[in-house]
């Protein structure tokens, strides 16, 4: 019963892509970094992800996608968060993205994207620096 914030993050798999190797690895890495991790499971729509994120009061959503549908799914998630008053929730993405897509994703409100080969420690440090648990 410590009076302190614990970072809560959601790891989500939007769309039909089932490749969850990365999502599972990052979920474990977040746990080992001391975060509370809520995993949505596979095949989630942006609507389902946003609803869950709000119910769980997370500080960040990490979207994982490896099947090319990120250009629709990621911006849609950000848009829905805004509609639901959850625009303080940081959204970042992990997966395979061509360079052109990365700038478009960032312009749509995805705060950072992590491509294959990014060390886990680098991702965790980024989260610790850029995602702050909400104030009391």
């Amino acid at each position: 019963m410590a009076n302190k914030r614990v970072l809560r993050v959601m790891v989500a798999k939007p769309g039909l892509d089932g490749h969850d190797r990365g999502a599972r690895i990052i979920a474990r890495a977040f746990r080992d970094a001391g975060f509370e991790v809520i995993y949505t499971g596979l095949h989630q729509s942006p609507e389902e992800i946003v609803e869950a994120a709000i119910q769980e009061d997370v500080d960040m959503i990490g979207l994982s996608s490896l099947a090319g549908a990120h250009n629709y799914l990621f911006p849609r998630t950000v848009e829905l968060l805004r509609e639901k008053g959850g625009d303080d929730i940081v959204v970042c993405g992990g997966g395979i993205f061509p360079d052109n897509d990365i700038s478009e994703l960032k312009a749509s409100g995805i705060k950072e994207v992590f491509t294959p080969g990014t060390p886990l420690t680098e991702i965790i440090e980024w989260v610790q620096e850029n995602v702050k648990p909400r104030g009391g």
Partner: protein
Amino acid sequence: MTSVAEKVKAGDVRTVARLIRDIDDGMPGVKKTLKELYPYTGRAHVIGITGSPGVGKSTLVDQMINHLRKKGKTVGTLAIDPTSPFSGGAILGDRVRMQRHAMDQGVYIRSMATRGHFGGLTHSTRSAIDVLDAMGKDYIIVETVGVGQDEVDVVKAAHTTIIVLVPGMGDDIQAIKAGILEIGDIFVINKSEREGTDKTLSDIRAMIEMDPDKYAKGKWKPPILKTEAVFDKGVSEFLEEIDKHWEYLKESCDGKALRKTRKKVRDELAELIKNRFIKDILNNLIKSKEFDKAVDSILNGTIDPYTACDNVMLPILGTRKK
């Protein structure tokens, strides 16, 4: 009334989610809100679900939600997973199995981590139940950690406690009967398509029958049900028993609000005092100079730990210590 309490009463999901977070994180402002919400609690039927890992608790809860929604009832769920003692982090995975209800406004699901709390719940579970109750949920389902520790706290928090087992747990039943079997209001043998269901059923029955109290006249006799949660079999029968238990409870306290039974109030108050004691007294004590001095004295051999304990406690226990 503060706007937070108003919004909780109005069922605002974002406010509820944030308030539960504040309770979980021990934020100082929450006490005021909880005080305001207290008069609006006591309506919901609180169901606790406990059992070993892998028995299918989350899947069963998912099906319960499904059935209750079909009957037009609203549901709040608190799903508790263990915090890693090494990192302080946790993977809260129960939600995955209930996530199909994410878009349903009549369902609120919240994952919680134990954060070092023992007994199967989190320190905040009881207050979180109150929040969901004040929010207007008809049923509140609490899924305990399920890591095999003595998860008996759920009895104090829930009206109806469900023990979930799977076939072929013969030896395990022997091992756990001391703690767990006594607290069950309803027993569920999930995955009952598997071999050994009848044996498990008769084992549990034998164990219940050993307890004469359970056979006293007018007392609730825990039913034992078979379910196959994955295939949605046996779940509606299970829910009927839950409702019967609720009726039994209401009759047994003459229609008064269940929350106001002497035992419930005692438990609740004791729990609050305990938490407060740890938070405000113990935590301050171990930060105090006297505490450090006592440790030094034990280390340099001038005092034994028992005497040191008495000395440190003296200012608190004061005159009552004779």
